């Protein structure tokens, strides 16, 4: 059975995917170029620009910061988000329906507004250390992912299994860890990974909450671009694309990538 697709549409689709992937190929190519300026196709091949990353301490430092921030922020938001998601799935009738909307507020409020407000209130107003404000900001913007992805898993979980465990004498807390958690593992992994990458790539929050001594990789990249235009940025970008590939592999293993079209 063939549904015929108009050839014009096929051509358009091919062009769209060239448009989507072409620029990324350009980055990879120019990261390998043996020139001091960005060019494509690469002229001569070298891995020099990759080793150069590690000679610029601003990059290595912010890489570490970004990674730790993403792990800590996501973990924090998981610790807070999973109980909330559980409460909403398990005790749906006990909680008002608008609560679901409360947890997606961080998506509805423009990130740049949130970043500015956090900077103004927390860092400036209350004198909270900037790194702590950064952590809170990241935990906030990934909260919708953790609550929703874990929530989707929980919604398809049959809670009578948990009740069965409790009826067999298993304490509630233990039942949660031994019966519920293993069954929503895929949702937790996928939620973690999506939150992680969101945090890792964030600009709008971080731009306000970085300062002397504390910066993240995307912010450092922005700053670097304003002064230098050499292939180092391209090679950092390639490293970040590597992280994306790893993330996609994990999502594919856990939920399948088609999950993202739902």
């Amino acid at each position, binding site marked *: 059975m063939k549904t015929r697709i108009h050839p014009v549409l096929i051509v358009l689709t091919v062009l769209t995917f060239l448009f989507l992937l072409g620029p*990324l190929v350009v980055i990879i190519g*120019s990261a390998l170029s043996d020139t001091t300026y960005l060019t494509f196709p690469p002229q001569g091949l070298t891995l020099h620009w990759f080793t150069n990353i590690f000679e610029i301490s601003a990059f290595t430092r912010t890489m570490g910061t970004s990674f730790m921030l993403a792990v800590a922020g996501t973990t924090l938001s998981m610790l807070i988000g999973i109980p909330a998601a559980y409460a909403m799935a398990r005790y749906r009738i006990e909680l008002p329906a608008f609560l679901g909307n*409360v947890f997606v507020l961080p998506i509805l409020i423009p990130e740049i507004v949130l970043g500015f407000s956090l900077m*103004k209130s927390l860092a400036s107003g209350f004198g909270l250390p900037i790194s702590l404000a950064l952590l809170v900001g990241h935990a*906030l913007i990934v909260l919708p992912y953790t609550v929703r992805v874990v929530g989707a898993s929980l919604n398809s979980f049959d809670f009578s299994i948990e009740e069965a465990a409790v009826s067999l004498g298993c304490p509630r807390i233990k039942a949660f860890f031994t019966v519920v958690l293993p069954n929503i593992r895929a949702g937790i992994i996928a939620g973690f990974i999506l939150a992680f990458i969101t945090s890792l790539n964030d600009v709008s929050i971080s731009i306000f909450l970085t300062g002397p001594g504390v910066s993240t990789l995307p912010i450092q990249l922005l700053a670097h671009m304003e002064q230098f235009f050499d292939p180092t940025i391209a090679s950092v970008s390639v490293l970040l694309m590597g992280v994306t590939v790893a993330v996609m592999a994990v999502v594919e293993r856990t939920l399948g*990538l088609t999950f993202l079209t739902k």
Partner: protein
Amino acid sequence: MSNRLRAWLLATPAILLVFIFLGLPVLATFATTFGDPKGPFSTYAAFFNSRFRMTVLWRTMEVALVTTIISVAIGFCTAWVVARMPGRIKSLLIIAAVFPLLTGVVVRSFAWLVILGKNGILNNFLIKIGAIAEPLSMLYTQGSVIVAMVYLFVPLMILTLVGVLEGIPQDMTDAAASLGATPAATFRQVVLPMAVPGLIVGAVLVFTGSFTSYATPQLLGGERQMMMGTFLYQRAMVTFDWVGASTIAAVMVVVTLTTVLIMSKVARKLNPMAG
């Protein structure tokens, strides 16, 4: 312990996180805008009377709207084809759309800097084939911002719409054909009306996303193509005009929330399943 109490206890940390670190700071920002000694609405009067600020607002609206229209058009046509591909090709295409989506904004905007720059790939290519003699200055124009924004949002649109189109059962289009509808009529009278609610949701995501973006206008628009996001940053961190920045922030929130509320109401009204 009652179930209600247990439910609230479990949800409390998340509610507090949102309330204390999102609700209060954002409300504080709003409050700032009304605290002007010249009267509670004077900052807004200043905003809407300033030609420069209005230019920025309209430019941002225009860029967001054009980005949305182009992204919806490209996204719909592409999703239409992707949804009709056999399994293996379809998953490959979905992977090809997810990859840029999960790659950071800075990286994706940077790519266009390399392509559109004075000594960029496009200029070099056009000179080489003799189409132009002097390099064009394509960066820091509205066009360059729109191209990069479309690049940012097309994957999102494709993924959303593939989901929407796959949700339309083949029986629907078969039924239309069996009743004498030509492929064009089936598309107009069955597929499109059924896809519109999902289309609106996707369009709202793109509009609000591009309306509030920072990194892309910063890199590809610069000072010359100031947009609301970059304007806010400039006011807050360069000129330290926090009242002005707060006003910009409030305008952004109002525009975003209004768009979301109106369009989700429209989508709900058009949603066939709601009856």
